[in-house]
C-alpha cells in the first residue's frame, strides 16, 4: 500500500485468486490421502501377524501388466486434457476413451486376481488378518478406480453427444487431478502390498 498517496488509496490493479475447482479437488485429495494413510498403516502394522494362512508370499502374484495399464492411463488422460486445451475435441475423445479402457483393464485384473484368491486359494476378507487388510486396502483403491471410471464415462458420454468443448478444459483438468491421484495411490498400494508385504 502506497502510504504517501492522498486520502483514498489506489484501487488494487490486479486481483487473482486460485481457481476454486482446483483448490477444492486438492482438498478432497488431501482428505482421501489421509483415509488411505490409515489403511496403509493398518496393512503395514499387520504384515506377518496373521495367525493362520494363506500368507502373502504363497498366494500373491505381482500384477505388473495391470499396473502398467493403470499408470499409463495417467499419460493418456494428461494427453487428453492437453488436446482439449488446444480445442482438438477429436483427439481428446480418443485419448479419453483410451484412459477408460486402461482403467477398465486394471479393474479386470483386480477382479481376476480376487477370483483366483477366493476360489483357488481360499482367501477371503474373514480368513485372516492378511485377508482383512488386503481386501480392504486394495478394495478401497478399487472403489476409487470405479468412481473415477464412472466420472470418466460420464465425460465420455458428453463428448459423444458433442457437449464437451474447449471451454471445459479447466474442469477436465480438475477431474484428471483425481485420476492422477488414484494412480499415485496405486504406486503406494503396490509397494506396500506386493513389495514390502510380500
Amino acid at each position: 500500500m502506497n502510504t504517501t498517496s492522498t486520502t483514498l488509496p489506489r484501487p488494487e490493479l490486479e486481483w487473482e485468486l486460485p481457481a476454486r475447482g482446483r483448490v477444492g479437488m486438492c482438498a478432497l485429495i488431501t482428505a482421501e490421502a489421509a483415509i488411505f494413510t490409515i489403511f496403509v498403516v493398518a496393512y503395514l502394522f499387520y504384515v506377518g501377524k496373521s495367525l493362520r494362512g494363506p500368507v502373502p508370499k504363497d498366494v500373491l502374484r505381482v500384477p505388473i501388466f495391470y499396473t502398467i495399464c493403470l499408470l499409463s492411463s495417467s499419460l493418456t488422460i494428461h494427453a487428453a486434457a492437453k488436446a482439449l486445451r488446444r480445442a482438438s475435441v477429436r483427439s481428446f475423445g480418443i485419448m479419453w476413451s483410451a484412459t477408460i479402457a486402461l482403467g477398465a483393464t486394471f479393474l479386470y485384473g483386480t477382479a481376476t486376481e480376487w477370483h483366483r484368491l477366493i476360489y483357488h486359494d481360499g482367501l477371503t476378507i474373514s480368513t485372516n488378518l492378511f485377508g482383512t487388510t488386503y481386501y480392504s486396502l486394495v478394495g478401497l483403491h478399487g472403489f476409487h478406480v470405479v468412481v473415477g471410471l464412472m466420472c470418466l464415462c460420464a465425460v465420455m458420454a458428453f463428448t459423444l453427444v458433442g457437449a464437451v468443448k474447449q471451454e471445459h478444459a479447466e474442469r477436465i483438468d480438475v477431474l484428471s487431478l483425481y485420476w492422477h491421484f488414484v494412480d499415485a495411490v496405486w504406486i503406494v498400494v503396490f509397494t506396500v502390498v506386493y513389495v514390502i508385504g510380500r
Partner: protein
Amino acid sequence: MSTDSIAWPSTTAESRPLVDRLHEWITTVDHKRLGILYIVYALLFLVIGGIEATVIRIQLIRPHNDFVSPQVFNRMFTMHGTTMIFFVVMPVLFGFANYLIPLMIGARDMSFPRLNAFSFWMTAFGGLLLYFSLVGANGLYGAGNAPDVGWFAYAPLTSRTFSLGHSTDFWTLALLVSGFGSIGTAINIVATVLCMRCPGMTLAKMPLFAWLNFVMAGLVILAVSPLTAAQIMLLVDRYLGGHFFDTQAGGSAVIWMHFFWIFGHPEVYVLVLPAFAFASEIIPVFSRKPIFGYSVMVGATVAIGFISMSVWAHHMFTVGMGPNANTFFVLSTMAIAVPTGIKIFNWLATIWGGKIEFKTPMLFCIAFLFQFLVAGLTGVMLSAAPFDWQLGNSYFVVAHFHYVIVGGILFTLFGAFYYWFPKMSGRMYSETLGILHFWLFFIGFHLTFDFMHIPGLLGMPRRIYTYEPGRGWDTWNLIVTIGVFFQAAGILVFLGNLLWSYFRGKAAGTDPWDAWTLEWSTSSPPPAYNFSVIPTVHSRRPLWDVKHPDDPDWKYE
C-alpha cells in the same frame, strides 16, 4: 455499501404459504440459510444432549442411586458424548463459519453452494441415524437399543461378541455419514477462503475469524478422514467378519485407540479454534481496540494446527506404550501450550488499556479467558505421563475436558450467539436476559466443573453408574449435580431470549456494535446476494477505514 435501499423479494415471503417457505429452506443452497439450519439443528441436539447429561448427573447425585439402570447409564454417557461433539459443537461451528466467512471476506456465497447443502443434510441425517437407534436397534433381546460403548468406542467392546444387536452399527454409520458432511464443509471452507476473497483482502488482511476457521477446516480434512477410515474398518469387522480389531485373530485393540485419537485429539482443536475465532472478533470490538499481535495470532493458530496432529497418544499413557513414545507425546503435548498461551496473552493485551464495554458477548469472552486458562493448566498437568497414570480415566479428566468444551468453547459460542444475533435476525436480543443467562450459566458451570476435579483427585473413575458411600465423594457429587440445574436454567433463559428477541426484539440496524468487519456493512439480515457491490478493502478493519477516512488503518499496516 447501499444494500439497505434495495428491496429484496424475500421481504414478501411472509405472505406466501408455509409449505412454500419450508420448501425454500429445504432446497436452499444459500450459505446464510444453511448456516442457520446448522445452528438451529445444533441447538435442538444441545437440548437433547443436555437432557442426557442431566440424567447422568441425577443418577450420580447420591451413592447407590437407582434413577436409571446401569445399562441406561452406559447409553446416556455414550449418547451424550457423541451428540455433543458430533451433532452439537461441530454443526454449530460449521453454521457460524458458513454464515460469517463469506460475509467477512466480501463474497456472495461459499465456493460450492450445492456441496454446502449436501454436507448439511449429511450431517443432519447422521444425527437422525444416531437417534433412530432408539427405535431401530433392538436387534436381540437384552442387547440394548442405543449405542453404549462410550464415545470413543474402544475395541473389543464394539465387536460382534460384546455388542450384540445393531446399536454400535448405528453409532458407526451415524459418524461415518456425518463425517462425509464435515469433510465436505471443510473442503468448502478451504476453497472459499482461498478463492472467494474480495479485492484487496490478502491473506494478511483477512479477519482472524476467517483465518482460524481456515486452519480448522484444514484440521477437519486431516483428522476426520482417519475417523472415517477407522469406521470403515469397524464396519468391515462387524459385517464382513474382518479382524482389524479382533484380538482373537491377531488383531489389535490398541490400534483402534491410535486411529480414534489421531482423529480425536485434532478434533479438540477443530472445536476450539472456532471458539478462538469468536473471541478474536468479539474482544477487540468490545475493548474498542484492534486485535493485539495479528500476525502472531495467525502464526500461533497455524502452529497449533501442526502440533495438534502429533499429540494424540497422550490419551493413551495408561496403555503402556513404552518410555520413548510416552516421552514424545508428553513433550509435544506440553509444546502445544505455548502457542495457546500466546493467544491468551494477545487477548489480554487487546483488552489492556481498552475502553471495555461489558455487554453480554464480552462477559462470555472474559469468562472464557479465565476458564480456558484453567482448562489449559489442568491439560498441562495431565500431559505429564506419571500424573496421568494416576488420574487417567478419572473424574479429573472429565472435569478437565468439560472445562475446555463448556468453559472454553460453549462460553465463546454463547458470546457469538449474542454478538451475531442482531446480524442474523435483524433484531437486538434482550440484554437483561443475556446477563441473567450469563450469571446462571457461569455459576452453574463453576459449581459443576470446579468441584468435579475433586472426586477425580480422590479416585472416582469416570463412567461408573453408582458408588459406595463414605469414600469422600458424596458431597462433591451433590454439588456437581446442583450446578447442572443452574446450567439448565441458564440454557432455558438463553433459548427464551432467542425466541423472544426474534419476534419482539427491537430492530438492530446494520451495525449495532460499531464493529469493523465486512458483515456489519450490509443490512441485517443480509440480502441473499450479501453485497450489492463487492467491496474492496485496504486494511484488516475495512469499516474503520470507511468510518474514519481521516485516519484509516491502511496507513499503518
